């Protein structure tokens, strides 16, 4: 009886354990405790939340390892951290720290405009963003064990997240309606590996867990993502840029759980104070959009 670590089942399995939950961006151990106390199922450790990254400009990189370790020590729930797209050395560093999941993230400034990280080469599992099914399957082919549909991070505007989860889900439904001999061309058109296309057509879902991320600011946003087919949500700036982070965090957890129960969503949405102010995604010039990063 040999024991094998870091298998595909354990990598994909951790994401399965997070389903129905909320993964919150945190920048300090104190934030991480607030997130854990509010019922977050995991935290994303980073130096600045996306809205601050957006405001600061410049190059956004992996966070300080000391800060990540501080957060790992503060909570017992899984800790994720972000590496730049294609920056496999940042990923090696995060793996060496022992984080539970790496997010190869468009929120940081990409390090490679052609290649993503070969995620099969790592023991730690990865989550990656996508805007459509082809992008999701390319990432899974590279070894991503979890997917998140991208929104426009740091805006507090849900519109891009809605666009992308709708595209993903409708492309899955389209594959399901196709004859088997049409899947070859479908794979070619979406630039995705045929075997994964065939699997999605047969199973009617991605081969890994899919969360929605980017632009969630109020409980109803989280429930909207869930009703559109998300299996859980990431919330970045929406919590710690709100007037009352503790209450907002708790309310978003409850609305994600009871996403199909409007009475409960109404109840938990009361008296939260102002949500993050936000920026309408449509007003952001193309060059400053984060969701378009990833190839």
């Amino acid at each position, binding site marked *: 009886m040999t024991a*094998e670590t870091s298998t595909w*089942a354990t990598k994909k399995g951790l994401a399965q*354990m*997070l389903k129905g939950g909320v993964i919150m961006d945190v920048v300090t151990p104190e934030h991480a405790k607030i997130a854990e106390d509010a*019922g977050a199922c995991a935290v994303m450790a980073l130096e600045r939340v996306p809205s601050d990254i957006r405001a600061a400009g410049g190059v956004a990189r992996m966070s300080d390892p000391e800060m990540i370790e501080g957060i790992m020590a503060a909570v017992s*729930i*899984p800790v994720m951290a972000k590496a730049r797209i294609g920056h496999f050395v940042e990923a090696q560093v995060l793996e060496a720290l022992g984080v539970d999941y790496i997010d190869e993230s468009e929120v940081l400034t990409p390090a490679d405009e052609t290649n993503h990280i070969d995620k099969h080469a790592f023991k730690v599992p990865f989550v990656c963003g996508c805007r459509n099914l082809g992008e999701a399957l390319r990432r899974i082919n590279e070894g991503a064990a979890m997917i998140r549909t991208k929104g426009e991070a740091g805006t507090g505007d849900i519109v891009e997240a809605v666009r992308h989860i709708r595209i993903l889900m409708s492309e899955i439904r389209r594959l399901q309606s196709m004859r088997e001999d049409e899947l070859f061309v479908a794979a070619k058109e979406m630039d995705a590996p045929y075997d994964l296309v065939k699997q999605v057509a047969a199973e009617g879902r991605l081969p890994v867990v899919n969360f929605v991320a980017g632009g969630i600011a109020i409980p109803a946003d989280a429930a909207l993502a869930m009703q559109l087919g998300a299996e859980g949500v990431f919330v970045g700036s929406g919590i710690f840029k709100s007037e009352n982070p503790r209450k907002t965090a708790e309310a978003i957890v*409850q609305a994600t*759980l009871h996403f199909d129960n409007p009475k409960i969503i109404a109840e938990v949405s009361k008296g939260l104070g102002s949500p993050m102010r936000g920026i309408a995604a449509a007003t952001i010039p193309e060059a400053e959009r984060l969701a378009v990063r990833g190839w």
Partner: protein
Amino acid sequence: MKIGVLALHGAVIEHIQILRAIGVEPVPVRLPEDLEGISGLILPGGESTTMRKLVARWGLREPIMALARSGAPILGTCAGMIIVAMEIAGGDEPVFPLLDVTVERNAFGRQLDSFETDLAMPILGDRPVHAIFIRAPIIERVGPGVEVLARLPDQRVVAVRQRNVIAIAFHPELAGETRIHRLVATMAAEYAEPGEGTEAAGTEPWSFGEVT
């Protein structure tokens, strides 16, 4: 016959699929009223700290304790094992103090230490179970009246039963393993209709079927 799956968060759908595959009607449980008419309850994997919060928030503690005390079978996997333990190492308050054991959370370390292996579990027959451990807990102390169902090669305890409560540190629901759910279904049928035998799962409860 209906068996509930605590659906606050975590690997809920995986248990629901296995229950369906063995001919049991699954009921997702998010609110106390969802417990109506079920003959057993599965507490899935996920984050026990999250479940602890949500159990308290939605008033599920007392009704689930009452269901367990009435003799309905309760199966906890991974986080589900933590929340049925009477004692949690490190001092966290128990959630459903049903099982006289002490569990240690994240006992193997972080995600990089998650693993899979085959284990003997004699209650299920000769064929070993394929056991996937993800940031898994372990049972440090086994109280009197608690039966050990499986151990790792180093003798650490990873599956136990005390009367109607079964707790497992790994994830049968991720490995297509149906025998544990069949055992729970048999116990649930006995609870629902005492003395009526074991027709609940639709097939011989000890048959070694697998979900494909």
